């Protein structure tokens, strides 16, 4: 029994013995108020369940995903006030909710409160806004039950965490000089070299198709002349090597030009989408942490609908600072992809320190394409051009948030 309770009981007794109604009244009220708090503290959290439901765990920048908070008071005692404080990583934006400074350094807090009747279950619908690219974490959660007068009575901490990724936006790629193919070779609609054992499907008959190419069964089924398609014996591959270092100097300084980094992410995602749409097996390499143990973000070149999602996820998870020198990444690429692969180096800074690496890769049979992001990249690109590397300049105008295309001039 706590000190105030003992004092209150003593006062009640004194009030009765001395015939002092005021003493008794004060003590009884104190006992009731104190007892109500104790009761709420003891059984307030009993039968309370809290659940956080994310509609999806991925979204594109500028998009929103539903977040449902489900709280259930599965007992007879109503809860005047239940506060759920979600500890969230920086950058989490909940629509119509303030993010508060959390007690955990570097993290934020989002509070929600309810009044719950007996056996009441409430689902609150909120929306997470993809305000910036990255991987964001929700949780842990601190649940506090307050008594009817708003005083915190009991607290529990739920350690369950959930994460979601905000992918960079993608825009169409506009090549101003397509004849020079600054971004590498496109996959031809009908390859010169076709592997007749790699049947790839059918397409409408075109004048000039040899009769043996006609798919007679499909023609009979659909009622129009239909020809077979075959895979190329060696499809084109491209690897986007992304230089996430945006400020000149040693990589370990970890200085970041955030706007430029976002531009790089948007440009990389847009290029990947463009390549994949053209049927090019596309991969990604970046010297950045993506929430995994590896220091290098690596997506092997592949085609297929899932590949763009993989690349966009990696770009979304990518941290702001480089994890290794870009030269090291470039030097490791020949060990991972075969010669003949087009390596599209996407950077926003002077390629001077690693132009020798690019030359060596080019000499080894790789198709090196340097894409420098930024309007003022002309002087920067000259040394690379002199070194015999194909250079293109890409721009997102007016900025990465509102640009409607990635303009590439080679």
């Amino acid at each position: 029994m706590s000190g105030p309770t003992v004092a209150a009981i003593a006062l009640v007794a004194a009030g009765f013995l001395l015939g002092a109604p005021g003493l008794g009244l004060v003590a009884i009220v104190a006992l009731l108020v104190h007892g109500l708090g104790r009761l709420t503290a003891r059984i307030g959290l009993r039968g309370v369940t809290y659940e956080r439901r994310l509609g999806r765990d991925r979204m594109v920048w500028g998009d929103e995903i539903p977040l449902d908070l489900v709280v259930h008071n599965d007992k007879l005692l109503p809860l005047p006030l239940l506060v759920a404080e979600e500890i969230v990583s920086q950058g989490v934006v909940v629509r119509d909710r303030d993010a508060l400074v959390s007690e955990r350094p570097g993290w934020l807090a989002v509070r929600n409160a309810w009044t719950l009747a007996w056996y009441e279950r409430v689902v609150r619908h909120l929306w997470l806004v993809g305000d910036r690219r990255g991987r964001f974490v929700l949780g842990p959660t601190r649940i506090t039950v307050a008594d009817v007068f708003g005083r915190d009575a009991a607290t529990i901490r739920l350690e369950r965490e959930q994460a979601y990724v905000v992918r960079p936006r993608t825009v169409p790629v506009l090549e101003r000089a397509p004849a020079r193919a600054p971004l590498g070779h496109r996959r031809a609609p009908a390859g010169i070299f076709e592997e007749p054992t790699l049947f790839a499907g059918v397409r409408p008959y075109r004048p000039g198709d040899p009769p043996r190419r006609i798919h007679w069964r499909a023609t009979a089924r659909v009622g129009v002349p239909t020809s077979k398609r075959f895979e190329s014996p060696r499809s084109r591959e491209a690897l986007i090597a992304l230089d996430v270092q945006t400020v000149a100097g040693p990589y370990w300084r970890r200085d970041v030009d955030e706007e430029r980094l976002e531009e790089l992410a948007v440009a990389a995602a847009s290029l990947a989408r463009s390549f994949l749409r053209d049927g090019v097996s596309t991969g990604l390499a970046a010297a950045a942490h993506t929430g995994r143990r590896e220091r290098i973000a690596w997506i092997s070149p592949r085609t297929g609908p899932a590949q763009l999602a993989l690349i966009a996820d990696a770009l979304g998870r990518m941290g702001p600072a480089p994890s290794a020198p870009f030269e090291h990444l470039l030097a490791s690429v020949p060990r991972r992809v075969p010669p003949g692969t087009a390596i599209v180096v996407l950077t926003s800074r002077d390629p001077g320190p690693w132009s020798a690496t690019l030359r060596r890769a080019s000499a080894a049979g790789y198709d090196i394409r340097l894409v420098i992001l930024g309007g003022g990249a002309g002087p920067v690109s000259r040394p690379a051009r002199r070194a015999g590397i194909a250079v293109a300049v890409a721009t997102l105008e007016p900025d990465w948030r509102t640009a409607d295309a990635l303009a590439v001039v080679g």
Partner: protein
Amino acid sequence: MTSAPPPKGRPGDAHGPGRGAAERASSGHRLTDVVVPALDAIVEGSWIALVYVSLQLGPAHGAAVLGLLAFVVAAAVGVAWARWADGATRRGSPAWATWVLALVAGAAGWLADPAARAALASALAGGAAFADLEAAISANIAGWLLGLAVLRGATHGPGSLDDERIGAMLDRILLLAIPWALGLAFARDDRPAFVAAALVATLTFVGAALLAVGLARLESLGTEAGVDWRRNRAWVVIVGGVIVAILVVSVPAALLTGAPPGTLLDAMWAPFAAVAGLLGLVTAAVAAPILGGLEAVLRVLPTPGPTRSPVPIPPLDSGAGTVAAAQADPRVGLTIAILALVAISIAVVLLVARPAARRRRDRATGPGPAAPEERAIVLPRGLLHVPALRLRARRRSSPTTAAEAYLALLDDVADDAVLARRPNESPRAHARRIRSLGVLAPDEPGSARGAPTAVDHDPGADLALLVADWELARYAGRTLSAAEDRRGVSRWRRLRAIVGRGSRGRRRTAGDGTR
């Protein structure tokens, strides 16, 4: 160039792009801006009033000329001063000005007693100056507590944490026993008066403090947590109910200790009286210029001349022959003019004030922080069992068509865990399972030979045909003929006799097994 700066500020500060929600929500807090400070003033005023009566009627053995309302008003002045000064200067109220205000209030409280005023006047006039001054000081010495009320009220500025402050006061509620003990120990003849006044102050303190702390806490959470007490009827009901319950429990308990019932009744009304007094003061402050203007208008209006009041017509047989001219009362015209002016004023006020009030209400309840919610009462399964049985019992017990016969058969086997149709079972699969169980075998040992079950009809075929009837009626939309319906009902009767017997047997067996 940035390097991801960590968020700065103390826990709970708004941060990030969601800040607009707080700004939107704050626009709708006008009512709270009045209610919470008013409750703060009542809380501060009531405990100081308790100390006042305990000192004045106890050790000082004087008269308690200041009531609870005076201290509440003084505290309200302090609160209003602090909030106004903060809004005007953005640096809070200057300390010296607050002290001057408190000094003036204390002096006013001291001199509220006529005896103190008289003694002071006598001291100022000369004569036995020291004796008079001593008498003046001792006459209403506790009146200076009015200044303390102002000082305490001034601590409730807009930046103050009302919920924490009032919560801390509530936690120290037992300290109220000190003035109670003081008053009871020293108030000899004035003990009933002390008990009456102290009880009123105590109950007012408790009621207002409980309400204020809950309201302030909820308000502080409201902007960022999506709780708006104006929309949260459940919370208001719970808080109101608990406060009433506490008072209902504690007041009779105090009655047992000897408090006079009249005093308790007064105590119950005291919080309402305090609020009404505050409202009256505000109303008077607003109404005074309006009434002044009304008076000026009335002066300008032409005063109606004396009218003749009607004189009773004398009876014809009186022989007078003359009818007196009617004379009107001069006050009638004035009354009509006043009523007309009041009506016009009310109409003008309604026309002007109502749209403004509606706009304010729309702002307050408009796009605030409230997110869409779904609320449902989810009772435990045990509580739902009985209603489910009742619902099933509503179905007709005596079917008239083949389809009804099939449903009746389902009802008959619903309580049998083996024979009941499962949720994922089609009618045909259900029938197949029952037939495979063997419970419909015509030569089942112990079957009633007199029943028309096993002799002419195969129960398995009966069930299959009944299911087929149901499928035709339910899924094929066919209307069965009267003969088919009759046959269906007959099949149900036969099957019912068999499954009822089987179910009873299984229940018996299960009962034996559990013993």
